[in-house]
């Protein structure tokens, strides 16, 4: 391997790693606030790419149906819950949040279907369409068992992921997509070309990590999210609504996933089921960070990206095996450095 190839692989790896950083940060954010390991997170990224591709080809994206169906289901559950607790007066407000708001981007996409909008507008629409999915899933799937153990929530997450992959195939079809590239710019640095796309990806990762950091350190909402993460009951006693904290975490997390989906789709062909592998690799990064630390997660995800890039060069067919096998030494390291962590009390 020549130094040029090594440099090229490293740059490629950092760009891939930056994608994982975005998704892994979302994992950690959602886990920290809700204790849900949101396995379908990678699917959200893939669905964003598929949505953007549909808008590009002037098709009605499958996300429209998905969001509409989820919104209807969530509203129905909310209405039933309110009627049962005899609070029918709160129904209009619930409908606003669970039905009207999610349907705004759906309506916008519907109205503009068939016309090719300019790229920035397409991106905004795709993101707006993707944002309600995770909060709605939270309402439908996780909230009834919000007090369950981490393991229960994880089991539900895995099942949910499979449901979403099935729905993805149903709504988007089996074809892979690759969207229009966001920039044609190429930087030549010391003889090694760096694509503008890679720079954009890394920049996005840096910007969003920065926002996340500032948000948690300096805003009251960030602090209330943190409080919910530490102790739900305690936070509730302080007047923080854990449900609301959860929704905010899902929204912000979906934004991260959406952005990564938009950034990755010009580089990689995305299928309805591509999300799982992307998400799982980001997971490896998140696990390096112990699902707690944002900075270590970011470094870990970059490491996974670089490792994958070198592994693909050495043996493309075993690239996945190598990436997932890295978990073993990582877990070994974690198990010895954190051996005294309290067990989940599960009885």
């Amino acid at each position, binding site marked *: 391997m020549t130094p040029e190839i090594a440099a090229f692989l490293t740059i490629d790896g950092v760009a891939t790693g930056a994608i994982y950083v975005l998704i892994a940060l979302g994992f950690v954010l959602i886990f920290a606030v809700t204790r849900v390991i949101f396995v379908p997170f990678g699917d959200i990224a893939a669905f964003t790419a598929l949505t953007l591709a549909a808008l590009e080809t002037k098709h009605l994206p499958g996300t429209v149906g998905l969001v509409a169906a989820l919104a209807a289901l969530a509203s129905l559950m909310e209405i039933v819950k309110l009627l049962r607790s005899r609070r029918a007066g709160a129904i209009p407000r619930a409908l606003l949040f669970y039905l009207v708001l999610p349907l705004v981007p759906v309506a916008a996409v519907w109205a503009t279907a068939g016309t090719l909008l300019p790229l920035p507008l397409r991106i905004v629409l795709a993101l707006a369409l993707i944002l309600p999915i995770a909060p709605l899933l939270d309402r439908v799937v996780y909230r009834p068992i919000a007090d369950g153990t981490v393991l229960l929530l994880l089991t539900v997450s895995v099942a*949910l992921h*499979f449901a979403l992959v099935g729905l993805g195939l*149903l709504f988007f079809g089996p074809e892979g997509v690759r969207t229009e590239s966001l920039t044609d710019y190429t930087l030549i640095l010391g003889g090694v070309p760096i694509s503008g796309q890679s720079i954009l990806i890394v920049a996005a990762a840096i910007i969003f990590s920065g926002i996340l950091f500032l948000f948690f350190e300096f805003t009251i909402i960030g602090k209330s999210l943190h409080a919910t993460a530490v102790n739900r009951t305690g936070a509730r006693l302080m007047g923080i609504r854990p449900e609301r904290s959860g929704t905010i975490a899902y929204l912000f997390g979906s934004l991260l996933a959406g952005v990564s989906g938009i950034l990755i789709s010009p580089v990689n062909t995305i299928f309805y089921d591509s999300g799982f592998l992307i998400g799982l690799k980001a997971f490896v990064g998140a696990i390096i960070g112990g699902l707690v630390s944002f900075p270590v997660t970011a470094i870990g995800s970059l490491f996974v990206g670089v490792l994958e890039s070198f592994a693909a060069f050495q043996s493309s067919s075993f690239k996945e*095996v190598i990436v*997932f096998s890295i*978990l073993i030494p990582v877990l070994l390291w974690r198990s010895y450095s954190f051996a005294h962590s309290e067990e989940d009390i599960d009885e």
Partner: protein
Amino acid sequence: MSVAAMRLVIAVAVVLVAAAPFYLAPFTITLMNYIGIYGLVALGLVLMTGVGGMVSFGQAAFMGIAAYSTAWLSAVMGYSPWLGLLLALALTSLVAAVLGAVTLRLRGHFLSLSTIAWGLAIYFTFGNIPGLGNFNGITSVPPVAVGPVKLLASDQIYYLIWLVVLLAMLLAHNMLASRVGRAMRSLRGGNPMVESLGIDAFRIRLATFVIAALLAALAGWLYAHMSRFVSPTPFDVTMGIEFLMMAMVGGSGYLLGAIVGAALITLLKNSVQDYLPLIAPSASGQLEIVVFSALFILFLQHAREGIVPFVARFLPETRRRPPPAAEPLPRRRQPDAGQVLLDVEGCSRRFGGLMAVNDVSFELRSGEILGLIGPNGAGKSTMFNLVTGALPVSAGKIVFAGADITKTTQRKIARAGIARTFQHVKLRPRMTLLDNVLLGTYSRTRSGFLAGALNLDAHEERQAYYEAIRQLQRVGLGERPYELAGNLPLGNQRVLEIARALAADPVLLVLDEPAAGLRRQEKLALAALLRNLKAEGLTILIVEHDMDFVMNLVDRIVVMEFGCKLCEGAPAEVRVDPRVQEAYLGGVA
């Protein structure tokens, strides 16, 4: 229902299973074969998830390792499938042991996440090895031959499959009822209690994990020789979650749940495959997984317990007699009265900037009852955790019975003869009183997994049961040994903890606020019990808030305040000590 009636039900079930090929259609027999194979994997998950509290999405990968081992050895290399079975079991247990050693020390969800990752890694490995036919797999795997008979037809291999299933169920049932089985059942709910009884939680976890993998390996071997073809697809993570679904739907704490769950999911899947094309002809494949996942989520939201426990509620309870008398377990020799048993020399424990225990020294002589008192936050419980090894000492030295135990693990300290109770009661509420106390005998008995599974431990078990019932009777809980511990009021739970500690035949009994939550009569009974124990030569260290209780019981008292030792002496001396009065009542303003 009596034990005899239970045996009859089981015998009828076995006969029905054995005669199935004579009254069921061939297609149903094929389905039964799948149910048996999947049931084996689910049985492993019941042990792992339902009993041991570890959730795995990767059992399909273990099944795959076994299926590929035997397929390669028999179809590619041309050896007998029976040799394939050996290779399958050996390779699977090796992989499981390595993966388990790495992941089982971690919190539960890390373990589960890693099962997804290595499940995928193993799947991709199968698909990328040319010698294993890449993603096309290995064809023409030979059938298993029993003597001259080749098990080709589905009603032939049916007998092999269900024989394995029934044997596996029987062995698993025996094992769960044995010494290690009780340890497995005690895993859920955290390590501190388990380790305090001298049980190596990690070793039990690892063994459970490997056993579950071996069951999956058996299933994989049967699968390879039943379908005569292996490819990576059936061993995907999707299948992994289906196995988990079977175990949980059936009722993951119950062995029978594995078979019931496997049957239900397999039949449901079969009928979904029949009906979905009628509803959505073009998209039935993808709808199937959506429907299944949605059903599973609904199940987890509303009926987490599963089917078997739900049905079991309507069945009459099995009547069990109290365990009979037996030869008692060998006892430890109590040290001679009056010699130094525990010597704490200048012990400190720091939590970040807080000195919870600061340079505390005291001695405990065998045969005495020493009280450790002090206001809230004085560091009593921390001191307690240092003595029992639950927390490492920051500085200082602890000597127990002549041996330095400063750096010894909690488990070894327990085995050396220090038994403890907890301030916040740590019992296993879903185990019976008897089982909870039996856990205490763990360090005095030695039967392992194999002895338990093969029922070779009967003599020792009788001894342990007798010991447990004696200790229960001694603390006044001998009336209903088969009651669930969770049904007891708090006061009795504390007493049950003492019985458990006594079952370990300790030299030193360490009690953390044993009188909290007890009524007056119960306190008197407890004090009488402790005096009795003292008369038998047992040494007791007790942390207590109830001054009446302490003052009338103990020989000497050590008073702590703000992490330091304030004074020590006989109860009467301590009571009049001005420093103690100031610590408890505040200084004269």
